[in-house]
């Protein structure tokens, strides 16, 4: 398993864990305060430690194939984020009206959700592309 695949599995686990923690906390303390669960996404920063093993061995950690897979996975994730963002805008327009005000905490929830969706799609796309090529 390559370093990028390990990072993808790690990020996917964090995204799923964050979403699960949010849903669990929603039931206990409500949808707004439960947003604190998305703080778990900060653990994705620890993925840099996966690259240390390759560095010690003195071998190539990533090459052109890895870069190509990353570009394709990023494009897939970006597409999903854009579509979700546009859908969120249309839904907000319908719910709050043309001159309505969208609550800031709802905006926060949308941003967290998009971050979570980006990580999930990028990780899944990475794992699929590694299996295919």
């Amino acid at each position, binding site marked *: 398993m*390559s370093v990028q695949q390990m990072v993808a599995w790690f990020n996917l686990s964090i995204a799923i864990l964050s979403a699960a923690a949010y849903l669990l906390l929603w039931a206990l303390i409500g949808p707004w305060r439960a947003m604190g669960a998305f703080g778990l996404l900060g653990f994705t920063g620890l993925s840099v430690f996966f690259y240390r093993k390759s560095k010690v061995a003195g*071998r*190539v*950690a*990533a*090459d*052109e*194939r*890895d870069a190509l897979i990353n570009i394709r996975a990023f494009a897939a994730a970006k597409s999903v984020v854009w579509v979700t963002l546009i859908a969120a805008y249309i839904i907000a327009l319908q719910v709050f009206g043309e001159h309505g005000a969208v609550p800031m905490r709802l905006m926060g929830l949308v941003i967290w959700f998009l971050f979570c969706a980006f990580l999930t799609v990028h990780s899944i796309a990475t794992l699929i592309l*590694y299996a*295919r*090529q």
Partner: protein
Amino acid sequence: MPKSELSNEIRRLRFEHGEMTQQELADRAKVTRQTIIALEAGRYVPSLLLAFRIARVFHVTVDDLFHWNGKR
């Protein structure tokens, strides 16, 4: 280009060069072992630069290493 249109002689050349391991070839061509595995399986089409690097490891030309099986 469909990947099946390009075949290669990497596996044969590795064994003709003292049963060179995939890791050894990867280190010399500056790629990961997974990329060598994908190349040998015909699942990945390399860049021209990588094709030249691998050819240089085996002291052959790119033409000797890769074969295009597509229709004109």
